[in-house]
């Protein structure tokens, strides 16, 4: 089972990831991003800027709840991958996602939510290590 691992900062798990068009799009563009692992997010999300840089068309709309308001946002179909071995290309999860856009004023461009996390095993250790096997 492939896995990505690293260290969290005690407050957040930020992991290097890749976003790509869905498998059936037969396009092999990649965008390297930083992703927040968020067990409080029901679904995965991607910034509009990242989606546009990949040329992803909007594929639907859905209400998004934040602390400020509920707003209607675009959704994009994409895949998420990780570099599990430094000598190989990224390894993509075997699922296509439809993720909502979010506005990011932070250092991450993707939020990996429970719809992805529940497909694998997420482990945390007291010394700051994490591992996500998928």
């Amino acid at each position: 089972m492939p896995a990505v691992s690293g260290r969290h900062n005690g407050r957040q798990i930020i992991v290097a990831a890749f976003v790509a068009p869905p498998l059936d799009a037969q396009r092999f563009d990649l965008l390297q991003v930083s992703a927040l692992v968020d067990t409080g997010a029901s679904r995965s999300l991607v910034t509009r800027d990242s989606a546009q840089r990949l040329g992803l068309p909007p594929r639907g709309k859905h209400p998004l709840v934040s602390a400020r308001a509920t707003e209607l946002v675009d959704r994009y179909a994409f895949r998420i991958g990780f570099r599990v071995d430094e000598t190989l290309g990224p390894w993509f999860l075997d699922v296509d996602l439809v993720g909502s856009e979010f506005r990011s004023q932070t250092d991450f461009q993707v939020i990996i939510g429970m719809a992805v996390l529940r497909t694998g095993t997420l482990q945390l250790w007291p010394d700051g290590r994490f591992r996500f096997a998928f």
Partner: protein
Amino acid sequence: MDMAAQRQQVDENYDQFQRVLGSILAEHEGKIALMRDGEIVAFFDTVRDALKCANDRFPDGIYSLQDVTREPIDLGVFSHAGG
């Protein structure tokens, strides 16, 4: 792909989806609805299956997908940090 046409398709399909959601929820909750021209074409269990059907049936790429649910997406802990 004609992005303006896709934008319009997404908006129109969403409006129509909201009108019929109450009538399809009981039977199809949790599924993914593939939509074209304001009509639901089919329901799927996975995004990949929905995309495969969509790409086979609509090579122009003009279609949309809607989750059959009334639940909004929760932005998670990030939202509580002011994002």
